[in-house]
């Protein structure tokens, strides 16, 4: 019986272990991160297998619910946790290439980031969710500024301002809910949400929706994303795109579905999702800088997931979660590849990267990642996109789906332009070193595996999304 709390305790333990090891030898700290994330990934994997039988409950500190902090791990939480830790482990291999000196602080923050994201996904208690959100945010603020250059600091500043306003709203929401229902356990809240005073319920929902929206990169709140992803070091932007963003979306899904079952509010969520996709994809087309382009494209993808959640049918929500997994893998791969391209071309402008990806070790995974993000079949991105589209159609959202398809044509346009430049016959082909191409190949294999044989993942998702949407 794996106690989910271990998934949170281990990274914390290793995070504070790294300064001690740091004293002994800098090299070993890097291996520590890899070991810690690997351990976490295997634990999450075992937990996932176990969770298939029955949801796992884990009471911390002996307090009985509804007061004690309870880790409620459903199959969905487990699968997202597993993906988060797996991607964290793969990115940690890429961390070996980080040159910046204070590696000890880097490893601490990185492990805290992993802990925070996993915690957000596993926890069943609202305030605990807020605490883990804060842990992730603090780790992200400092990691965003890790490069200590002007771009890094400015990005971090923007993230701090928007992030803390967001978390204040979350706290506001929590207090309002607590003031009415006197409980913080999510299942409890979901059960007794009806008894709340409608006006307070609306304010609470809006503030929670807004707070988690910041983390989930929804349209008006994702203004910090491009600057932060651009300023942060490469492995970190890869981590940002897959770890906190996924946790944020998961929290949003919980807010929308488990706690507040607002069916007539969902169409507004769909519109917000569409706006996010629209602004994400269209501005990504105008970007010259690779990392900003990938940041905007990740906004677009998150918008698609939000749209999927908003549509609300079992198929669409299933597609949204599937897309969550595919996007985590795809974006991590693209950001690592971007890291290599920037390193090889010595500049982050796309024009200067002529022919940098001609080496098959980088080229093929990059192509697989891009095609998966575009939603091409044998890769993970296909099923997510297809189910969301079909869910949208079954709810009659013709116009919205048509607009979404137009936006994704723009997405294909700028990815094709990027691939064209990167695969052109450039002058010299640079061989990537092990720390770069191993994660790329691992992620590519994962994407193909999930794409070619989706049965296991779909089995989990079908069962979960039916439960979440109450068969809506």
């Amino acid at each position, binding site marked *: 019986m794996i106690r989910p709390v271990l998934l949170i305790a281990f990274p914390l333990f290793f995070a504070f272990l790294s300064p001690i090891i740091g004293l002994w030898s800098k090299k070993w700290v890097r291996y520590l991160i890899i070991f810690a994330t690997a351990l976490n990934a295997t634990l999450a994997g075992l937990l996932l297998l176990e969770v298939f039988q029955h949801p796992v409950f884990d009471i911390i500190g002996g307090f009985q619910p509804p007061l004690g902090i309870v880790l409620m791990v459903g199959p969905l939480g487990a699968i997202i946790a597993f993906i988060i830790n797996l991607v964290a482990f793969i990115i940690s291999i890429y961390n070996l290439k980080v040159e910046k000196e204070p590696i000890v602080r880097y490893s601490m923050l990185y492990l805290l980031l992993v802990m925070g994201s996993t915690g957000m996904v596993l926890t069943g208690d609202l305030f605990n969710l807020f605490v883990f959100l804060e842990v992730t945010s603090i780790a992200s603020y400092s990691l965003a500024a890790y490069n200590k250059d002007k771009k890094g600091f400015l990005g971090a500043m923007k993230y701090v*301002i928007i992030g803390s306003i967001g978390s204040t709203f979350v706290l506001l929401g929590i207090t309002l809910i607590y003031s009415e229902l006197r409980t913080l356990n999510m299942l409890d809240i979901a059960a007794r949400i009806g008894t709340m005073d409608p006006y307070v319920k609306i*304010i609470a929902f*809006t*503030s929670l929706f807004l707070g988690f929206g910041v983390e989930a990169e929804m349209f008006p709140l994702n203004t910090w994303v491009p600057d932060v992803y651009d300023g942060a070091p490469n492995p970190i932007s890869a981590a940002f795109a897959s770890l906190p963003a996924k946790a944020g979306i998961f929290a949003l899904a919980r807010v929308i579905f488990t706690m507040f079952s607002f069916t007539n509010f969902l169409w507004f969520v769909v519109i917000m999702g569409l706006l996010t996709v629209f602004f994400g994809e269209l501005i990504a087309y105008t970007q010259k800088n690779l990392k900003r382009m990938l940041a905007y494209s990740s906004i677009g993808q998150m918008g698609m997931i939000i749209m999927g959640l908003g549509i609300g049918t079992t198929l669409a929500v299933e597609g949204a979660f599937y897309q969550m997994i595919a996007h985590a893998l795809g974006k991590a791969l693209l950001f690592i590849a971007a890291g290599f391209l920037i390193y090889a071309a010595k500049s982050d402008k796309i024009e200067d990267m002529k022919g940098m990806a001609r080496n098959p070790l980088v080229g093929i995974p990059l192509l697989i990642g891009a095609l998966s993000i575009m939603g091409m079949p044998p890769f993970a991105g296909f099923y997510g996109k297809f189910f969301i589209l079909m869910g949208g159609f079954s709810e009659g959202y013709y116009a919205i789906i048509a607009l979404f398809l137009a936006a994704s044509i*723009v997405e294909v346009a700028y990815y*094709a332009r990027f691939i064209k430049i990167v695969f052109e016959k450039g002058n010299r082909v640079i061989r990537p070193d092990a720390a770069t191409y191993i994660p790329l190949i691992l992620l590519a294999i994962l994407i193909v595996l999930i794409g070619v044989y989706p049965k296991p993942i779909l089995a989990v998702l079908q069962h979960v999304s039916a439960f979440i949407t109450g068969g809506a």
Partner: protein
Amino acid sequence: MDALTLFGIFILLPLVGALLSYFGRKYAPIIALIFVAITGIFLYVWYGNFGSYTVDIGVKLNLTFDITTWFFMLMINTVIFSSLLFAVSADLKNAGGFSTLMLLGFTGANGVLLSRDFLSLYLFWELMSWSVYVLILRTSGEYARRYLLFGVLSAYFIIMGIGIIYYYTGSFLYEDALSGVIPYYAWAWILVFLILGFGVKMAIIPLHVWAPYAYSSEQPFVSFLSGGLSKLGTFGIYMSMYSIAGVGILDSFGTFRGVSLLGYPFALLGAITAFVGTILAIFQDDIRKLLAYSSIGQLGYVMVGLGLGTSLALGGALFHAFNHAFFKSLLFLGAGAVIYRTGKYKISEMGGLGYRMPFTFLFVLFAIFGLAGIPLTSGFISKWMLYEAAIEKKFVIIAPLMLIASVGAFLYSYRILYGIFLGGLKEEHKKVKEAPAPMLAAMFILMLPLLIFSIVPGWILGWINDVLTNTGLKPIDYTQFTYYSSIGGANMATFWIAFMVLFFVAVAIFIMKRARVVNQYDNYFAGEAPSSVALHAAHNYYKPLKDTWAPMLKYSVDRAYEKFSKFFVDGFYEIKKIYTGNPQDYAAYLGIAFLIFLIIGWWLL
């Protein structure tokens, strides 16, 4: 034969082949060839037992193996077999990657043909379209980008069509679409979306812009793309109009002299495509672009047949698609052989290669006969059926466009023959050798059906008849050697006998006296001093025609697309202004968003 063997042979096997042949380095095409041969053998063996099965890979895929699938698979399998055979000796760079992607495309094509539910159709369609994208990427990123934009456009048209059906019936299966729930106007939208979606693959006029670019990548791939994969567009339109919707739905839009009002505009579009495609082909100097526009023109004929919808027209369309698969890929392989030997693409830079590469010349000549519709090849029969279908129904706009387009086909056919194979042999091509054996074998395979089915049209008309009756249409009336329409018929047996006898008469007169061979510079120059340089009149060959057509040629669809997309991109830059970069504006956005959410929340309560 159960679900797994069908799925295994036609989908898993090529996928495994794709994986294996990547590591084959130089011998990759041979490995790929073996895999394609295996599927070919099974295709032959399984002719009889058709059936439909479902395979569960997490999502249910409904695969059906019936005569329609078999007919199209026959084309695609033979074309990819000969393309790979050609590639064996064409020593392409990174042949491993080439054969992997070809097999992926082949899997996608097989999947589209086998699938009878929209999920698997869309899955395999996208798989096929992106593997073509990467194949074009091997030659030029820009061309690949333009292709992918249209490829994705076609996929999203299809998705829209599928979505509307899914909204009404809630299921992906083809047959459920007919469960009578879908209202009549929704069918109009569904069919328009599906036809446009599949039409992009068949390069119908407004959506043809990607074809000339896509067709200038490696020749063996292009012959598979234009010969094989464009048939998927035909298959898609045929299935969506006559199997998913069915004649009942089509006629519910009102019929105009027996042809559904929905089908007629697409037939007209097809005729315009045939005409414009042929005219544009006449003026191209690059052999690949010329063949690309000619392919657009020929597929315009098929579109006419599909649009008209009478059994004769559909029979003609299927037969013409069959012929097009063979003579077009034969032409591309011929051009590929010439490019392989001389390294040149421009027609005017070649000349006189027919004397050095006689077999390639004969194969290309035979393909030209097929293209132009000369009765010595089966190309004539399919064109004949399309004309008869149009004239039978007294369509006075479609028929002239098609007839003039076929006369135009003579012009660009001769431009290929004269420009490349006849005229003066240039100095640097003196020592050009004949194309290597595998190339000639590949071309020979493609030539055979054109000849056989011209002598005995009964066999293929039999298959086409089965396909038509399988989708519930009236059969065409034909016998072993003859084929009829309501206003005329023709007997190929008497034609061939008469031709042989009269040819023998001409030979008899001809061989009375022997002739002395003379080198190419010993010409009659009406008194001028004969020049030692080989003069070749192929440069800017149809200049007078180009001058007369000049006012028309100003308008080009490509530029229209560029202007159209420029308009949108400027819009993107406007939207970009929202991300000002100043955190205070961002905080303001947050506050405003909160207020908007509150108002909407209140309003909803």
